[in-house]
Each structure stands twice: as C-alpha cells, then as structure tokens.
C-alpha cells in the first residue's frame, strides 16, 4: 500500500510526551492536563482552554530511579511514567488527574506530589477513588469523585469554565474526534483493509496524546486519504486477531504481531479504541456532566470491575469485536505485575478456548518491548495454529 501522508509525522509525535503539538498548545496558553487511565474522562480534560495528555513514556528502557522508589517488582508502565517524570519529561503538565485504579498506579501518582518530579510551581495532583461496579450507587460515587477531584480543581485552581455549556461543547468536539477514529477503525472490518493494525494504533495513540483541536485536522485528512487508498492486491496477513489487555501504548507491539503474520483488527486494551472512541450521547433529561459519567462507567472495560454485569460485559465486548471484525483468534496480554489482567487473562482465555472454542493466546509483556524474541516465537506459533485451523476448515 502507498504510505499514509502523515504517518511519519504521527510516528514522530509519539517519540516524546511533550511533542510538537503539545508545545504549540502550551504556547497558545492552553493548560496541559495529564492522566493515565480511562477512568478519567478524556472529554472533561478538553474543556475550553485546556487539553488532555494521556501519559506515556516512549523509549523508556531503564527505570532505575523509579525502581529505587517503587522496587523493580511493580508494573513497568507505572515505573516508566515515574522515571520519565523524574527525568523531567512531564514538566509541561499543569496537573495530573490520577485514579486509584490499581495499587501501583496509585503509588506512582502519589510520588508526583511526594517527590515533586514535575518542575512547575503550580502543578498539582488529585486522585479519584474509581468505582468497581456499574450500578447506580457506584455511578453516584463516580460523579462525586469526578466533580470534587476533576471539575472543581479545574475551576478553582486553573480557572477553567466547567459550566454545562462548556461540557457540551467539549462533548461535541470529542464526538467529532471519535467519529473520525471510529470510521478509520471500521475499515479494519473489511476482508482486505486499506489500513494495517499498526497504522491504526499510531493514529489512535496520537489522538490521545495530542491536543484534540490540533490533531483533528490531520486525522480528518487521513480519513479522507484512507477512503481512496488502494489496499494490497491480496490480504497480506495470514490471520486476523483481536488484542485484549492492559496498557499497550507501544505501537511497535502491534508491529511485532503483524510482522509475525497476523493483522490486529481490533484493539481492546488501555490506550486502544475500545473503549475510548464511542460517541457520548446526552439524553434530554440529563446534564452533560451526568452523561459523561454514565457513558464512561458504562463503556469502561477495566478488569477491576467486580460485579457480574460488568464481568459479563467484558467478555461480550471481546466476543463482539471478534465477530464484527471477523477475527480468527484473540491475544490476551497483561503487563508484567498487573494483577487484574493476570487474572482476567487466565479466566477469559479459559472461557474463550474451552467454552466458546475461539483460539486464544495469552502473553505477558514488559512496558518497553522487552523479550521480543520470546514474544515473536509465541505469536508465530499462535498464528501458525490459526492457519492450520483455517486449512482444516475451522476444525
């Protein structure tokens, strides 16, 4: 296929948290609001005058200093973020909206106020207590948490307007971005898509780490380009897979899978588009803020949700993606030391393999692409098994 016009530009934007567009937005006087987790609604961080910046630590290969604070036995994503913060990689941030979504994330975010790694006098941190069920009681708690720990600090400490009208405007802008990404993502449903999983991963990532108003024109242009892009004459991959798991913000992980012969047709992981790019609907009888809370609680697929309805939803969502994107198999990933996804991976893969008879492979990975050889071998073996299954007519 012909190269996408902006792909190299997008790839470059992913080389640093403080990328060209972040600098541009800061120069315009916008506030940079950091966050780590889907529990913090991205849309609320894109109220007029500010922009969201989902924290990544690209090219982080050593976490020695963070390891001193948090030991080497904690989630490498969290450690890498702390390391990058200590290195000065997030000095552009005005605040960090954290979530105690897991113990390590919690401790990592605490270090942002305990050792003050962000060199910005006005920088502050809040942490929400994220709900663990999808019921009404938890929705109310989620609203309280987001109001007290996100909206009010935005208003009181950064002077951001948090009115219903402002939130509606942010939702509108957010939905515009979601529509573009979803439309691009849906191309992966085609038998011979004009986009690879890697390219989509890059596009999805830039939409999360760049100011929306600045990246949107590029994304819209890319969508137009894709509509007329000629795919390869023949589907160049041997299989189609859904990737499910925790933090995957390394586009090279997708490249690795695809280099082994399987196209990543759906991305259901933190930093992926499922969830994150569903449009927010505001009902007649509710405020924009309530709609945002309801939306995010409903779509959240985090493995920490404990109630039966959410557990079932997680499985059904993966199944839906598998069916809609015509995948041959599923890859369950967990970041090393991630307890939630360690369990989720074992339980769900067992269900998919033994009850739903869908080929499923499970892997554990570092944050920065370590142990590539092992992963490659594992993917190759899995893809081969999918191929054999196809040859045998699905038996």
């Amino acid at each position, binding site marked *: 296929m012909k190269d996408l016009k902006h792909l190299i530009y997008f790839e470059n934007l992913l080389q640093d948290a403080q990328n060209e567009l972040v600098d541009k937005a800061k120069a315009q006087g916008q506030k940079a609001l950091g966050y780590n987790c889907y529990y913090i609604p991205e849309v609320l961080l894109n109220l007029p005058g500010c922009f969201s910046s989902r924290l990544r630590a690209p090219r982080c290969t050593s976490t020695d200093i963070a390891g*001193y*604070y*948090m*030991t080497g*036995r*904690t*989630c490498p994503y*969290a450690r890498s973020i702390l390391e990058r913060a200590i290195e000065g990689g997030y000095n552009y941030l005005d605040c960090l909206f954290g979530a*105690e979504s*897991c*113990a*390590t994330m*919690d*401790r*990592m975010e*605490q*270090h942002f106020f*305990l*050792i003050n790694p962000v060199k910005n006098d006005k920088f502050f941190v809040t*942490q929400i*207590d994220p*709900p*663990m*069920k999808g*019921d009404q*009681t*938890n929705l*109310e*708690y989620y609203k*309280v*948490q987001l109001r*007290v720990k996100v909206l009010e600090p935005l208003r009181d400490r950064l002077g951001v307007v948090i009115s219903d009208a402002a939130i509606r405007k942010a939702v509108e802008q957010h939905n515009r971005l979601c529509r573009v990404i979803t439309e691009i993502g849906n191309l992966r449903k085609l038998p011979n898509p004009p986009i690879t999983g890697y390219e989509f991963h890059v596009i999805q990532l830039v939409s999360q780490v760049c100011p929306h108003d600045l990246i949107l024109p590029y994304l819209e242009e890319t969508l137009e380009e894709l509509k007329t892009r000629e795919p390869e004459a023949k589907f160049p991959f041997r299989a189609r897979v859904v990737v499910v798991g925790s933090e995957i913000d390394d586009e090279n992980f997708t490249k690795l899978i695809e280099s082994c012969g399987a196209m990543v047709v759906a991305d259901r992981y933190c930093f992926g588009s499922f969830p994150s790019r569903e449009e927010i609907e505001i009902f007649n009888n509710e405020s924009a803020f309530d709609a945002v809370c309801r939306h995010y609680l409903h779509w959240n697929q985090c*493995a*920490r949700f*404990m*109630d*039966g309805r959410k*557990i079932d939803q997680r499985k059904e969502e993966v199944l839906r993606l598998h069916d809609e994107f015509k995948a041959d198999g599923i890859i369950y990933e*967990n970041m*090393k*030391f991630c*307890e*939630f996804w*360690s*369990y*989720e*991976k*074992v*339980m769900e*893969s*067992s269900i998919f393999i033994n009850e739903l008879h869908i080929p499923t492979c*499970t892997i*554990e990975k570092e944050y920065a692409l370590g142990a590539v050889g092992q992963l490659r071998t594992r993917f190759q073996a899995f893809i081969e098994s999918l191929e054999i299954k196809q040859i045998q007519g699905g038996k």
Partner: protein
Amino acid sequence: MKAIDKLIAPLDKALERFDPLWQAEHGTGGLRSRYYDKTGVAKWREWRGVKDTLYDYTAWIKNIICMVQMVAMAPLPILKGFWEYRWMGSYLGTFMFIDRLFEGYRGPELRIAHMNMHAIVQSLTKRIAFALKNDARLGGGPDTENIIPHDETITPLFLKGFKGLYPFPLQTLPEFIICDVDQHIEPYYVDVAESFGLPADVCSRCAAETGVAIDDAFPLFGKVMLSTNMPCNASEATSMFQRRRIGKPDFPITLAMQHNEKEALPYSRQTLLDAIAFVEEHYGVKYDWDEFFKYAKLMNEQNTIELEKWDFFKTPYSPLSGVSESLYRLYSWQSVNGQDPYFNKVDRKVIEIIRKAYEQKYLPFGGKTRHRAFLWGPSAVYYTDFPTWVQNCWGITIVLNMDSTMGFNMIDTEDPEKALDDLTRFTEKACMRHHAVGGWDNINALWTWAKEFNCDMILFNDNIACKGMLGTHALMEEQAREMGFHFIFVEHDLEDSRTVSRQDMRNCVNNYMSVVLGEKPLDPTIVEFDDAAAY
C-alpha cells in the same frame, strides 16, 4: 501461692538446666536444641519450670478436649472433611503450631497467650464442625441454606442483623487460618492456580484462594456469595474467579478505597445498605437492628478493652505483645467480630492480668527486651511465630502489629442511622486494608503509631508481591532515617515459603542486628537453623 512457689523452688532449681532459656544464657544449648533437624518436630516439649510447664500442659489438655468435642459434634462430616479436603489435614498441625508460637513464654505472658489461643481453638473447632456438617459437598445439613458465605475480609458483624442466618467467611478454613498453621499447604494451591496460567508474581494469598477455587476445595453452602474489594487488587481479582467457580448469585461489597475522605462515607454506607437488601431478597429474612445491636455491644466491649490494652502496650510492663496479641486480635476482630461472648470473657480476664502486671511494674520476657518494634505491613502467614523468634533471638518486642489497628471505633447501639455510619467506618478498616491502600496518609500513619507506642524500631513487612506496599519503599526508608528509627525490611512472600524461606526472613533481621547494630543474639541456637520441612 507463695507457699507452693517455695515448695517447688528446689525442684525448679534442680531442673533449670533443662530450660532452654537458661541453657541459652549459660551457653549449654537453647530453644533450638530440642528439635530434630529441619522438621520442626521437637524431641520433647519445652521445660518452662514446674508451674509454667504444668500450665502449658493444662492448656494442651483443654485444646485437646475442644478437638474431641469438635469430632463429637459432627463425627461423620469431620471424617469426610479430612478425606475430602487437603487443607483439613493441615489442621492436625495445630498443636505444633501453638508450641511454636509460645516458645520462651513464661508467667503472665504464657497465661495470656494460652487464654487467647484457647479462645481461638474453641471457636475454630466449632466452626469447622458447623461448616462441615452443613457442607453440601459432604451431604449438607440443617443450616446449609441458612449460611451467608462471605469474603474473609468482610466484617461479619453487620450480617448479624439477620436473625437465624449465619455469616461464614468462606476462605477462612481452607486458606485464611490454615496458612498460619502449615507453611506447606498453600503452596499446593498456589501451584494449582499457576498450572492454569496465573503468573507467579501475583499475591500468593490470592493465588492460593484461586487454587482452592480451581481445585474445587471450598465448602459449599448458602444461597449467595458476598465478595468484596477489600483489601487489594489481587483479592478483588480472585473474588471474580471464585464467583465463577462457586456459581451463586454474588454481591461485591465494594467499599470506598479512599475511606478517609468525606465523600467516602455516603457511598460505603449505601453499599452496605445495598448488600443488606441483596441478602433480604435472596434469603427472605428482614434485617433486624435490635438483633444487630446485641452483637455490636459485644464488639464495643472488645474494642473498649483493646484500647485499654494499647495504653499498657505503650509502657514496658505489658505481658501481652507479639504474636499472642496480633493473632488474637486478628481472629477476634476479623472473624469473630462480636459474635462470640467467650471472647469478651477472655478479654476481661486478660485485661485484669495486664492491669496487675502494670501495677507490679512487671517486665515481661525476663526483662530481656532491647528494642520495641512496630510491625507494619501484612505479615508472612507462613511464619506466624516470627514475632516470637525476634523476641527470643534478639530481644525485639513487637509492641503492635499494623493489622491490630483494624476498626476500633465504637458503634452506636440505639439508632440505626448512627449505627450505620459507625458500622461503615468500622467495616472500611478491615484486615490488611486500612493502612495498605486508600492514600498515602494511611501508610504514612506508621510514624505516628510507632511514636505513640514508644517504639525505636520498625519491622516493615516487605511482601514481595504486594503491589501497594512495594510502591512505598524508598520514601519509607528515607523517612525512617530522618526520624531516627531502626528500620528493617523483612522480605517475604506471604503464603509461599518457597520463594522467601523463614530463614531468609530471619536473615533480614540477623543482618541488621549483627552488622548495623553490632548486637549479640540472646539465643545463638536460633540465629540460623533449617525449618524448611516444618509445618
């Protein structure tokens, strides 16, 4: 009594050379001398002097009687239980366990320790009989459908408002208690879980629970399951696993993590109300606040006495400390939780002994205490007698354990609305939960506790798989240095003694005491020994 003391004094003198404490002092042996190597099996029991040995013997008899009563209560289910469940076999190690815990204990320390331990034994044996008698897997019983199985970290007190129903912490028998007794039982279940692909770096307690679920080794009873988000991530994750295997309608009682904040109370309160409604719906029993108040009063009395005990712990004259204190508090709070008046009786007796000891300015452990330590972080359950070892080997008294600081607020016993608020605060401060998660201030509270209890040392449990505590390493150590506390990380793997052995744990202390402080052990026979094959 004094006449008896005079009478036995010559006998004590004649036999003192058999006392391991005397042997250690005189260089002729010590606490480890009477063991077969590696096994943890003693050739003979500890000679503690005539009076204390007889007291220990009497306590042993009383515990045997409890076990006999347990079998008599449900002979067939007990036998079936032994045959069906691997973890039941481990309960046979109880006597060895008790001996281990109270090595080197004399006088009031020994009396209190046995009173506390007997309370646990009498309660636990009844529970085992009750559980097995009603275990549907073994044929069921009259109360099979009247039991409310719940997660071990949910406080059963609030469920006592359901008259005629029996709250039962499901993981207690196969995991929560037995891991203390036998260091080899949970690694078996950990292996089962890992054989299904669970990574080895998750918390071993939760991995073991998962293994029990996969191995189909939970007793079966009740109509629902009440799980919870307490205390931590792995516990939440394994609950989802267990939910699937147990296959009953479940209600996760997800209390606020950041429970110190004012927004937490209304949410957690509502969650408890939702849980009550869930039980009412499935069991058809209305919640009765008067019934609840009866048990809340018992819990309040326990906590009142506990707070008084703490005042004595702050002085050098408390004969209650170490494992005797922490194990009892753990069981009486987390598991009994106001349900058993026997514990109140024991508390009343124990506080009398403590008061008397204080009046007499009694120095426990022969006055050999060199350091007063606060034990912080979840402890290694495969080395329950670790506090006993630090006392006997290095003269370090564990004044209080983090887990002892579980909910100590009083609960209103008249007004349901006020009671619910109190109950919420109380429930949120469960085992391994209160200080380990929910904000930096909770873990950082260590310094205030340690100062209040006049400690000069912190033993910081470093569970190598506890993600919440691992993220605090450097800052805790830096603060300790600034404040002038002796600070020792004690590495362990909670329930898997294969990763960090008991000797490895001992070495953490040995190295600090000998290299940093340059101290000599009180008993050289227990500095280094192999107890890998012991229960």
